[in-house]
């Protein structure tokens, strides 16, 4: 582990670290900017603070737009302040897909509580894709943890993929549902039930709220319990302060039951690169569909895999260009190998693709899968499909990580497997 800060003044670097650890507002804020913008020293800074992590209880708050997340967080922050806690908030708002700009308005509902001395609020623009959001946000959360804030509350933009990515950052994931969504509750329940440790029905002063609580409890009953923790449903009316203290207590109980710093478990890098490369090579050899499609494994490592295919006559659609399904199959296969590279069995639960350019007979398509985020239960991946310098498609996917590992026989393929087979093998 590299712990030295690159060049520059050692004393200044040490002073900077000490200021962050002491919770100095300006020092923390500037370090966040460095992480957010990918400054050269950001990675070394985070590495140097690794030993300071895991003290904060990180609570992720997510839910559809208009669910009342900001209002609820303002109430939670107020409650934390009353309890004498130093609390930090990371509020993520969407960037404009057109200009890249953003109006960060989450503070609008927090102006009263944010002025308190023990409160630190930072607004973050999602900057396009879920991956950038997740990686920068993880660093920001780490900085707030190292600075001694507890809890650290992360508010997300309320859209499918990011919800899941952010859930991977939190010790406790709270999903906020406004009352009366009716069929929408049905539509989102699968995703919500997978990631929620605590469910909140907001706007509890609405007449529909108690029916929504009942619906959610019914859905939870149909679901297999995960370990000893039963997902509670909390009714809140944040503008009146109702249910807020209860929510904070429930979240604390979850942290006790499931472990504070749980978010860090996924960050541990267990196997070396050779183990992962060997495992991927073995899995690729055992994959009948990979063989059927003549997909070639070019490279692999922990959380990554690169596959290639050459577009042939059998891949063409009625327009004479490569069928989207073939490109999807290539990207999805890289996704599958990358997500299974660590050892535990990973099963895809969601994937999406955007096609940017056509591919024609003879084109060699390369799909590179990279891990965006990973915790004990969920991981997200980004796959770029390219033809030379041209980006043909972008693919994103999420896996659920099972408790079981790939059979030892497969994982422990010896030395030969340490070398990734080239296109010819």
């Amino acid at each position, binding site marked *: 582990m590299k712990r030295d800060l690159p060049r520059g003044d050692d004393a200044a670097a040490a002073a900077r670290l000490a200021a962050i650890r002491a919770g100095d507002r300006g020092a923390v804020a500037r370090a966040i900017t460095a992480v957010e913008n990918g400054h050269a020293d950001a990675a070394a800074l985070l590495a140097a603070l690794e030993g300071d992590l895991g003290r904060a209880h990180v609570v992720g708050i997510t839910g559809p737009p208009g669910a009342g997340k900001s209002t609820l967080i303002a109430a939670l922050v107020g409650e934390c302040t009353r309890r004498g806690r130093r609390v930090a908030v990371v509020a993520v708002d969407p960037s404009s897909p057109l200009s890249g*700009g953003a109006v960060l308005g989450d503070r609008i509902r927090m102006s009263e509580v944010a002025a308190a001395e023990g409160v630190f609020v930072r607004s973050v623009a999602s900057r396009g894709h879920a991956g950038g959001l997740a990686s920068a946000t993880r660093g920001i959360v780490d900085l707030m943890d190292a600075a001694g804030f507890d809890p650290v509350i992360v508010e997300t933009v309320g859209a499918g993929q990011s919800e899941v990515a952010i859930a991977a950052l939190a010790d406790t994931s709270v999903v906020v549902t406004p009352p009366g969504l009716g069929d929408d509750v049905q539509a989102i329940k699968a995703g919500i039930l997978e990631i929620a440790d605590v469910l909140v029905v907001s706007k509890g002063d609405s007449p529909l709220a108690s029916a929504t609580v009942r619906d959610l409890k019914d859905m939870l009953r149909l679901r297999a319990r995960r370990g000893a923790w039963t997902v509670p449903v909390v009714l809140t009316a944040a503008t009146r302060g109702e249910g807020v203290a209860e929510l904070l207590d429930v979240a604390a109980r979850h942290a006790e039951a499931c472990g504070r710093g749980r978010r860090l478990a996924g960050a541990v890098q267990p196997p070396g690169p050779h183990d992962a490369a060997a495992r991927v090579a073995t899995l690729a050899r055992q994959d009948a569909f990979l063989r059927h499609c003549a997909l070639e494994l070019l490279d692999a490592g922990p959380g990554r895999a690169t596959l290639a295919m050459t577009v042939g006559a059998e891949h063409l659609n009625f327009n004479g260009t490569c069928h989207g399904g073939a490109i999807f199959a290539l990207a999805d296969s890289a996704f599958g190998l990358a997500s299974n590279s660590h050892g535990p069995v990973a099963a895809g639960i969601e994937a999406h693709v955007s096609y940017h350019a056509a591919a024609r007979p003879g084109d060699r398509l390369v799909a590179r899968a990279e891990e965006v985020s990973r915790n004990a239960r969920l991981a997200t991946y980004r796959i770029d499909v390219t033809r030379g310098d041209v980006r043909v498609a972008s693919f994103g996917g999420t896996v659920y990580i099972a408790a079981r590992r790939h059979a030892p026989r497969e994982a422990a393929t010896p030395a030969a497997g340490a070398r990734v087979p080239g296109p010819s093998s």
Partner: protein
Amino acid sequence: MSLRPKVLVTKIGLDGHDRGSRIVAAHLRDAGMEVVYTPPWQEIAAVVKLAQEEDVDVIGISSLATDHLIVPRLMHALRDAGLAEVGVIVGGIVPDEDERALLDAGVARVFHPGSSLDDIAAFVRDLAARVRSARFPA
């Protein structure tokens, strides 16, 4: 590293006319900037704390009813908090005889009614770039 200016658009004092600040905030967003927006009636201490936490490059103060007169106090408070390098602009209704006082207090520029939104965005972008390079020397 690409520069994406981070700007705080806010109002201090007792004036609640926020249409102008909303329009400017939306335009800066459309010009590719990240804009932290607050409701009106912010206290100076709260603005300073917010500017520090959000690590903004530029603060835009909208003033339509004499709130610009407390901007020099904001400048003082920013300096006291070690934020002297943050750029501050004022937009709205500022009588000519007050403009000099604001500029003397360290305000980078005053935009009067009728200013072009594109001019404001261009000025903020330049100001942010200067502030950013002063704070994060390459």
